[in-house]
């Protein structure tokens, strides 16, 4: 490229990166912030429900038959397409029995006792996940977040090009330079995983829901919903088996489960589906996950074994690699985003990378705000509408989320409209931080207060949980309820970290460079 063209390209790229970055930053921050909670969704959804608070024993030694057989022997219970989720599936310690037309029944697998299902009255993890991908605002939020993800991919590629074309100052001595450096360096660290996560996120949000015109085009106007076209490939339905209307004695679930494990020892059976139960044509589908072939199964590709419930003969055995390449590809794409079947350390590592990305976004916004602040030349305190809005959105979300966790165990579970009250208080608390941001002239002071408040609320949350649930930290540890205890510990530590940051954070804009860039202590903003 010729010199003036390169210069023009660099200028335009930088301007496009800045304007699009400022526009998308807040959406992306929200997406990543709630995404960090979504990573730990299986843990939070156990923590939030009293019905999951029971001693956890070795699930391999549990006799499921005694529980399942009792339930499905009830003459009022449907006899076809009964779904059973075994303990441990998605970190849930309960045994769950459901059917399309009955409410899910929850059982303590150790005692066989039926637990009271909170059902629609406890949706904390569900809500946090919905906030992550925009589903809370229905299809519109989902599409918006999907297009934000597309924009973020442009920002990542554009940002990398800027690093190649522009020589940024490495040793800037003012705040603006420090924020710019932090924004660049943090994104250099996280850009590859963030790109993959954003790409798969865009695929999930826009790929299916936004492909209506494409679906209409390829099906010659027959279908608008692309999922209706891909469903037969991704989730093929087993042909329905006609009942023979001859009652036959069934083999016990334990015997059938043992047989399934013999056929495919690599399969971690997670779900069972009982078809035409007690009939001569009865069969059981054992659906699970093969941890020896990660990436390729777990979402749409679910290996399964179908056995006759009468004589345990094998009807079908579908392994991971038996499915078509398109299903394997879809599962690997989803794996990159949903981290299905990965261990806790990988989850913590990915959430740490997402935390760094949140910081990188925040530093990018602060860098832009510092540029705006320069106009006022320290004559008056810097007071910018976008700055206040960003403050409420990025830092204000912390006390609001902490309140959400507190309300989970403060509000009675039988309360009328419990979920509405909890979510309304969350959004109003978040909005209150906006009012407070505008009330305070100094954004640093407001941040300090928000962080302090969030710290206190996050620290209180586990104690409210201990008192309301009747399980102390020691009880949780002794009864092997480590999933629940780990959430309490994480909340407490998060609160503690926020309190420390709040304590250390300066209260005025003049002081922050000592906080962000101690090396240049004593220098003014404009030096």
């Amino acid at each position, binding site marked *: 490229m010729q010199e003036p063209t390169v210069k023009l390209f660099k200028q335009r790229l930088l301007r496009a990166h800045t304007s699009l970055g400022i526009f998308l930053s807040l959406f992306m921050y929200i997406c990543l912030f709630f995404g960090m909670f979504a990573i730990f969704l299986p843990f939070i959804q156990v923590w939030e429900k009293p019905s999951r608070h029971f001693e956890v024993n070795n699930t391999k030694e549990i006799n499921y038959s005694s529980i399942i057989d009792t339930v499905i022997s009830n003459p009022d219970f449907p006899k076809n*397409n009964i779904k059973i989720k075994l303990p441990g599936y998605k970190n849930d310690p309960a045994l769950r029995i459901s059917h399309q037309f009955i409410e899910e029944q929850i059982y303590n697998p150790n005692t066989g006792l039926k637990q009271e299902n909170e*059902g629609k009255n406890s949706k904390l993890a569900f809500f946090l996940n919905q906030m992550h991908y925009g589903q809370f605002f229905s299809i519109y939020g989902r599409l918006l977040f999907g297009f934000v993800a597309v924009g973020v991919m442009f920002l990542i590629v554009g940002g990398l090009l800027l690093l190649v074309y522009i020589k940024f100052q490495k040793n800037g001595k003012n705040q603006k330079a420090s924020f710019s450096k932090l924004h660049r360096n943090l994104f250099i660290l996280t850009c590859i995983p963030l790109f993959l996560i954003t790409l798969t996120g865009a695929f999930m949000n826009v790929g299916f829901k936004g492909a209506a015109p494409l679906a209409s085009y390829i099906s010659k106007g027959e279908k608008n919903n692309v999922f209706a076209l891909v469903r037969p490939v991704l989730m093929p339905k087993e042909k329905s088996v006609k009942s023979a209307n001859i009652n036959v004695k069934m083999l016990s679930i334990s015997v059938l489960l043992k047989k399934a494990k013999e056929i495919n020892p690599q399969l971690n059976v997670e779900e069972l589906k009982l078809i035409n139960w007690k009939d001569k044509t009865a069969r059981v589908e054992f659906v699970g996950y093969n941890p020896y072939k990660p990436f390729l199964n777990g979402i749409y590709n679910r290996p399964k074994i179908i056995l006759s419930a009468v004589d345990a003969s094998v009807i079908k055995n579908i392994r991971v690699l038996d499915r078509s390449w398109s299903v394997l590809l879809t599962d690997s794409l989803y794996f990159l985003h949903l981290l299905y079947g990965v261990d806790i350390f990988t989850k913590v590592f990915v959430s740490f990378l997402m935390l760094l990305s949140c910081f990188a976004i925040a530093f990018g916004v602060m860098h832009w705000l510092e540029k705006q602040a320069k106009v006022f030349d320290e004559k008056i305190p810097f007071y910018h509408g976008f700055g206040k809005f960003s403050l409420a959105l990025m830092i204000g979300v912390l006390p609001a989320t902490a309140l959400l966790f507190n309300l989970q165990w403060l509000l009675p579970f039988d309360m009328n409209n419990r979920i509405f*009250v909890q979510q309304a208080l969350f959004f109003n608390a978040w*909005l209150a931080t906006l009012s407070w941001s505008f*009330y305070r002239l100094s954004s640093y002071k407001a941040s300090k207060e928000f962080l302090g408040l969030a710290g206190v609320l996050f620290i209180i949350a586990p104690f409210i949980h201990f008192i309301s649930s009747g399980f102390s930290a020691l009880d949780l540890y002794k009864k092997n309820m480590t999933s629940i205890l780990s959430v309490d510990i994480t909340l407490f530590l998060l609160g503690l970290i926020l309190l420390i940051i709040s304590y250390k954070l300066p209260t005025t804009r003049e002081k922050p460079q000592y906080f962000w860039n101690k090396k240049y202590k004593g220098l003014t903003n404009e030096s």
Partner: protein
Amino acid sequence: MNRKLIIILSILFGPYIYAHTLLLNVFSNEDNTISIEGAFSTGQKAQGALIILEALNDGKVLYKKRLPESSELRVEIPSELYQVVLDAGSGHRIIKAGIEPKTGFKNKAVQNKSSAQTKEKNNTVLITNRQIQVAFAFAFFLIILSIILSSRNTNKLIKELQNSK
């Protein structure tokens, strides 16, 4: 219609067009029996869904059975006022008024009771509406407050800036 508009509308509402709604059909066979049919709007059968015939005066269950493979049941019409309920689980119920037998219902005075039940339901809706109103009013107040505070502080800073010149 404009082609662009069709594309935009199909993006926005496309996913809703293919909603999976459960339907309940009740019709008289003209021989003092009714046929009850449950199916999804997509044509899929609702095998396993629970059909209940509930008396309107005391809520007594007059008949209860899950839909068979054919997704259709033939039931004798009760002599008292009743309603047909399709219980799809998780509190999702579809209710239709029961068809009268040829000889008519025995006791029609019970309709008042069912209106009392409706009143109770209306009260619950009223509470929900009030909660929604309070939540939105408070959110609106906070937005207005933010604008007022912003304007107050901006004016204060402009004055300060003018004084410093």
